């Protein structure tokens, strides 16, 4: 009850001090203008994709900033205005104060996310309605974007990680896909791919794609498409073997001397496994997980820092959490310095710095991995497993540990001493 009282009071603080109003107004205006201002490829699918990606991305960013601001301001202002004196002299444990504030911020976030997410969903559904005179575009939109498809990566890639393959002229590259569990009602599956070329990037790459399984025959498809961007084509689902195996091969028939480069995991099989509404809901849950972590960090920082410093600290943690994968690649990929006579001292120091950096990155959650935008824009299913993973790793573990640390600091703090 005490925790809830503090949560309700935090909501009142946000509403009556009009803290969220500016952010929400800004977001509403920008979101309303997204479909009219952004340039797409002119197709209905392109317009829906771009609206979905930008509006959800914007919602994600604005709510992250809002959460950070709300969490730090509600806590720091209570300490600065000495209201915390009055609260702390009541029979409330300090963890209840922290948890109550976090809960209040998260209730505000959930309400905003549901309202604004609902508005985005409505706008996308409106833009994705069947249009007169453009009947051919709607099925493609429903099949590729307004759906939820399972994405399967090649079995080898799953085992060995991301490895790039180079396919010279008249050479072939094969991928094996397993556990393709498309139902019998699905007539087609989709092959999604992206490649790069050793030749001019403007040049179209020609290739012969073959899909086959041992007991279901094969299907061939010729493509002549530019490099760098993702492409898709459909394959009859009947070629997938009953145990869910399928081999996909690519024969480079571009031109002599032109090699085709496939970065790891950029060839995938997609098939429908759910609807867009459910997927959109799970996307909002992923956004909420991120906000839960940001709120915990911002409140934690506010227990020992003043408002502007706590906000800056939280922004730093947020940026680092969004860059975990990039920094990890940089740290693991860069060679240790070798500089002649000073090598003996430089190398251990650099190795130590690298270990410290790697450990620091492990403490932070990889928020980019829980970004729902690429999933929704590509019509890719967000599995419940992903959401639960996020709940465990981002909310329970990272936010939980942050909360415990914040409690220890806050509990040791003499509230009547201003920082």
């Amino acid at each position: 009850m005490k925790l809830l009282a503090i949560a309700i009071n935090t909501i009142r603080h946000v509403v009556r001090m009009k803290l969220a109003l500016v952010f929400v107004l800004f977001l509403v205006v920008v979101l309303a203008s997204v479909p009219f201002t952004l340039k797409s490829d002119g197709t209905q699918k392109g317009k829906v994709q771009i609206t979905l990606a930008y509006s959800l991305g914007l919602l994600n960013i604005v709510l992250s900033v809002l959460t950070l601001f709300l969490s730090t301001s509600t806590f720091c202002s209570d300490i600065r205005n000495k209201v915390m004196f009055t609260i702390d002299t009541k029979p409330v444990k300090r963890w209840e104060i922290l948890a109550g504030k976090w809960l209040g911020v998260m209730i505000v976030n959930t309400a905003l996310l549901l309202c604004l997410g609902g508005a985005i969903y409505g706008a996308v559904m409106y833009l994705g309605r069947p249009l007169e005179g453009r009947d051919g575009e709607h099925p493609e939109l429903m099949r590729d974007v307004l759906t939820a498809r399972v994405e399967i990566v090649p079995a080898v890639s799953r085992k060995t990680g991301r490895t790039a393959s180079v396919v010279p002229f008249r050479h072939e590259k094969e991928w094996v896909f397993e556990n393709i569990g498309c139902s019998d009602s699905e007539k087609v599956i989709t092959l999604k791919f992206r490649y790069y070329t050793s030749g001019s990037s403007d040049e179209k790459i020609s290739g012969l794609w073959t899909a086959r399984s041992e007991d279901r025959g094969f299907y061939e498809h010729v493509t002549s498409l530019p490099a760098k961007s993702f492409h898709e084509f459909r394959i009859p689902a009947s070629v997938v073997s009953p145990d869910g195996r399928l081999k996909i091969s690519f024969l480079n028939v571009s031109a002599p001397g032109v090699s085709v480069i496939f970065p790891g995991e950029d060839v995938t099989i997609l098939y429908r496994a759910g609807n867009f509404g459910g997927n959109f809901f799970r996307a909002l849950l992923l956004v909420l997980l991120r906000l839960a972590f940001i709120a915990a960090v911002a409140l934690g920082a506010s227990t020992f820092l003043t408002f502007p410093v706590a906000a800056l600290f939280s922004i730093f943690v947020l940026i680092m959490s969004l860059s975990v994968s990039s920094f990890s690649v940089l740290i693991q990929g860069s060679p240790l310095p070798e500089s002649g006579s000073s090598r003996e001292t430089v190398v251990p120091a650099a190795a130590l710095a690298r270990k410290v950096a790697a450990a620091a990155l492990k403490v932070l959650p990889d928020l980019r991995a829980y970004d729902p935008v690429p999933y929704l824009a590509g019509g890719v299913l967000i599995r419940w497993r992903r959401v639960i993973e996020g709940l465990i790793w981002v909310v329970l573990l990272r936010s939980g540990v942050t909360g415990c640390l914040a409690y220890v600091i806050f509990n040791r703090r003499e509230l009547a001493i201003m920082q």
Partner: protein
Amino acid sequence: MDAVVETIGLKKVFRDFWHRDKARAVDDLNLTVRRGEVFGLLGPNGSGKTTTIKLLLGLLFPTSGTVRVFGLSPRNISVKSRIGFLPEESYLYKYLNANETMDFYGRLFGLSSSERKIRTEKLLKMSGLMPSRRRPVGEYSKGMARRIGLAQALINDPDLVIMDEPTSGLDPIGRQEVRQLVLELKKLGKTVLISSHLLADVEDICDRIAILYAGRLIAEGSVKELLTRKDVTHISVSGVPRSTVERVVNALRDESAKVDVNTPMSSLEEFFLSAIRDLESAERQKSPVEQVKIASADEKQSVIERLTID
């Protein structure tokens, strides 16, 4: 009588970032507040009254020494549920109205909805805030803010009420009402600890007082004990002719007695100021090292005696 508040050798030193001593706010404070009494913590600005109160509430932690409230640490939740605290200024949420403020603090005490409703109405009536109970506290005048602060301090029907400068910001009528309220709390068996520098406001209502100066206790005792002039006898007579009084006065003068027909009591304010003046002049004549020593038991006793006999 049970000790409700007890401090033993309490010391609070504020330190800077480098952990160097910045200010000694409370120094070797031994204090006992007994159940059911109204205790006044007096002293000039910067004497350590508010710091002492913050230590008693767990808002500050002692550098050394012990603080016990109801025999336990002031940070204990069961202790907090028995305390009502009126801070120096009403540190309340400006966006909440009086009803919501009372309801919020009532919830923090775990009071039921019906209890909160009854107590809110009673306390808002008592503090005269019923007509403005729906206005945000941020719009209240200073006096009204003190009243709502006082009301919230009593929402839990506390056994111990701690008031930091309760009459500051109030007009004479408001001050009289606070005094009346404190006496009513005493009648109900509550223990009240008041910190103030407005001596006239607390003189009539305190059972015992302690005077702090530079963080040290320089006098403690009942108001009567401290203010009574022991070398003076006050004879009160009525219905006696003037000539008879003059005969009595002359007879006393024949005995070389100094006779004064005025009231033998000095005001608390006079006592307080002379105590501070004496201490300041005594300290001016001593080195800084000796100044610290003045708080030793014997010297402190002599200062108290000098002050009380004077």
